[in-house]
């Protein structure tokens, strides 16, 4: 499961910046007039999903078929593998988008919305009521609701309980970066590092896990030489400096979690897919991110998955698709997907239910409100990602100060 989520991320993240480029290509799509939600009998719809691991795939098929039966719709749920973004763009170009499609909120939703090929969901009985503002905003483009977020992803610190017990360290979340450095130092032994983080360039893992530290230091991701960025890079430097983060982290990407699951590191940063990963061979817990200074609140970056409806000249079809999305996004389905698929539900009520069932999800859920939507960085994020990787590497194994490394990497 973890690998599937990671694979999706690998495909999605490098393409974040396509959005602004494609914004130039905006054109008017066919907008249908709203129709009554009654009378969907005989309507045939196609749904695309691209999350192709089980049980996620079967769950989605089940939800849509059940909703379609209730609405009197015939639905064909298809799972697309491979480069989903390209498939969506090609389908949009050929005016052959599916009626309903799952869309990543950082790349695919803005790309399609900017081309005018998605329907405005607010004209139907689809609302973001019950979602945190940060989650609801993920489905909007230029203030219009083009996708209804059903699940989100953010990040937290995972720790191995046995490692804490062996080191005689209480399982208390580190409040500040200094606390984290000192905690990781206490957990470091001859055969185990205190923490593992990705540090390689290219696969998107390093900047995604670095952003929560930068944001929790009060930094702005668009300002690579700001105080928050410097404090976050300095944290990495201090972790390597006290021997609790291996210098080899600069060679590790998404696979860095293997160091944690194999017991070679006591802590790591990961996503919600780990919450339901039954293959982890030890007891573990989760912490929220620490902040640079005590008394501040941690902040994370948020990625969402939303269902969008293709703008269709056939008003009845468009309305039926919107009704199908609304039904699919029910609280019950969101809880079910979270517990079985390892995603954070978009609905706050479903988040609470998820935490009841999986208490370790609390740091993920707590961080959703006020989280940062990295889609707002547009194409700039592509360049920034490499700059942050270069700075982290130069500061940790290249011997530079955090400030100098960031200035050099960003050319400022």
């Amino acid at each position, binding site marked *: 499961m973890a690998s599937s989520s990671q694979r999706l991320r690998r495909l999605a993240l*490098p*393409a974040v*910046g*396509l959005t602004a*480029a*494609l914004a*130039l*290509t905006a054109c008017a799509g066919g907008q249908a007039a709203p129709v009554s939600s009654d009378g969907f009998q005989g309507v045939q719809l196609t749904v695309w999903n691209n999350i192709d691991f089980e049980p996620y795939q079967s769950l989605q098929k089940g939800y849509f078929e059940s909703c379609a039966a209730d609405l009197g719709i015939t639905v064909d749920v298809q799972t697309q593998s491979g480069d989903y973004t390209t498939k969506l*763009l090609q389908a949009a*170009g050929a005016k052959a988008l599916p009626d309903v499609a799952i869309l990543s909120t950082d790349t695919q939703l803005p790309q399609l919305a900017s*081309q005018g090929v998605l329907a405005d969901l607010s004209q139907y009985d689809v609302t973001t009521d019950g979602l945190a503002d940060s989650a609801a905003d993920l489905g909007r483009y230029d203030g219009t609701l083009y996708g209804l977020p059903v699940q989100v992803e953010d990040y937290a610190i995972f720790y191995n309980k046995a490692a804490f017990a062996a080191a005689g360290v209480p399982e208390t979340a580190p409040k500040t970066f200094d606390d984290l450095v000192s905690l990781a130092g206490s957990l470091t032994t001859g055969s185990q590092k205190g923490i593992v983080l990705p*540090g*390689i*360039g*290219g*696969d998107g893992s390093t900047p995604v896990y670095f952003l929560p530290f930068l944001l929790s230091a009060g930094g702005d991701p668009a300002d690579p030489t700001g105080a928050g960025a410097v404090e976050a890079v300095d944290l990495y430097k201090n972790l390597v400096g006290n021997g609790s983060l*291996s*210098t*080899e*982290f*600069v*060679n590790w990407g998404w696979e860095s979690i293997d160091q944690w699951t194999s017991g070679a590191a006591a802590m790591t940063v990961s996503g919600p897919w780990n919450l339901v990963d039954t293959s982890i061979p030890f007891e573990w817990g989760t912490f929220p991110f620490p902040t640079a200074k005590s008394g501040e609140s941690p902040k994370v970056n948020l990625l969402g998955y939303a269902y969008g409806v293709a703008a269709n000249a056939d008003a009845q079809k468009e309305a039926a698709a919107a009704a199908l999305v609304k039904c699919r996004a029910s609280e019950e389905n969101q809880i079910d997907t979270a517990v079985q698929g390892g995603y954070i539900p978009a609905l706050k009520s479903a988040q609470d239910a998820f935490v009841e069932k999986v208490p370790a999800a609390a740091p993920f859920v707590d961080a959703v409100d006020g989280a940062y939507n990295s889609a707002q960085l547009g*194409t700039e994020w*592509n*360049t920034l*990602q*490499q700059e942050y*990787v*270069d700075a982290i*590497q*130069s500061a940790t*194994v*290249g011997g*530079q100060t955090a400030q100098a490394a960031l200035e050099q990497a960003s*050319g400022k």
Partner: protein
Amino acid sequence: MTAHTISTGRSGAPAPGRFRRSLAARRRGELWGFLTPALVFFVVFFLFPLGYGVYMSTTNFTTGTFITGRAPFVGTTNFAAVLAEPITFRALANTLTITLVSVAVELVLGLLLALLFARTFPGSRWLPTLILLPWLLPAVVVATVWKSLLAGDGPINDVLGALGLPVQAWLANPATALPSVIVVAVWASLPYWATILGAALKQVPAEQLEAAQLDGAGAWRRLTAIVLPTIWPVVSVLVVMSVVYTLLIVDLVLVLTAGGPANSTVTLGLLSYRQAFQQFQFGLGGAYGMLLLGISVVFAIVYTVMSMRREREE
């Protein structure tokens, strides 16, 4: 002409003059028939991508271009942009270092291996085939295997530690990452060198070597006076081809270090890949590609001149 044809009594047979002309035309037609597939292949798979690369390097070619088809012409702006980046010169230095060092080492070690396999010893028949295996492996597989071998807790450090030699995370240290990449590049290409040079050594006349030996020439003298001059045409072509091949190195570096740590292993090919497929600036990626093309063309010219000279000598 019709009357002439009738007068021969060979109904339906063409006139001799016409027959000669049509044979020549037919021969030309056949020649073009055989040539056309090669020309089409050359145009479609060589000239078009090359021309498209040149075109991309002079335009602001982004992902939007795929949808709109619009790529504004920007002249030499992309080249000015990449040449203004300090990392370009670091990549150029790294690319040349990897190329020159690895080709030099491959030449020496490849020749030594070829000379070894020219002797008869237990296993001398199947060993050359066996050492071809690394060359048959895709670069991604080679890099993945070597990444784990060179890891801090990898087998190479285990051996070095057992011998009391210093160990370290070879790919994580900016000082050792580039030499490590060169070692892997050499390992991957060495079988190719050994095989080609081994075949070239078979051209060395055994009588000359015997005669020289009888005249008292030592092994070194025989190598420098007879063996090397005989195989030199092969060596020179091999060097030029390997230089061009190594200049384009991307996959090996991408998997081993992704250009890190701290850009210590970044190459021009990698920068082209980064710009095109991570930052979606296809114009800048094309500009890096053209820089590489320019360097490769210089070596290709050397190769062509050498080939022509060799043909003249033969």
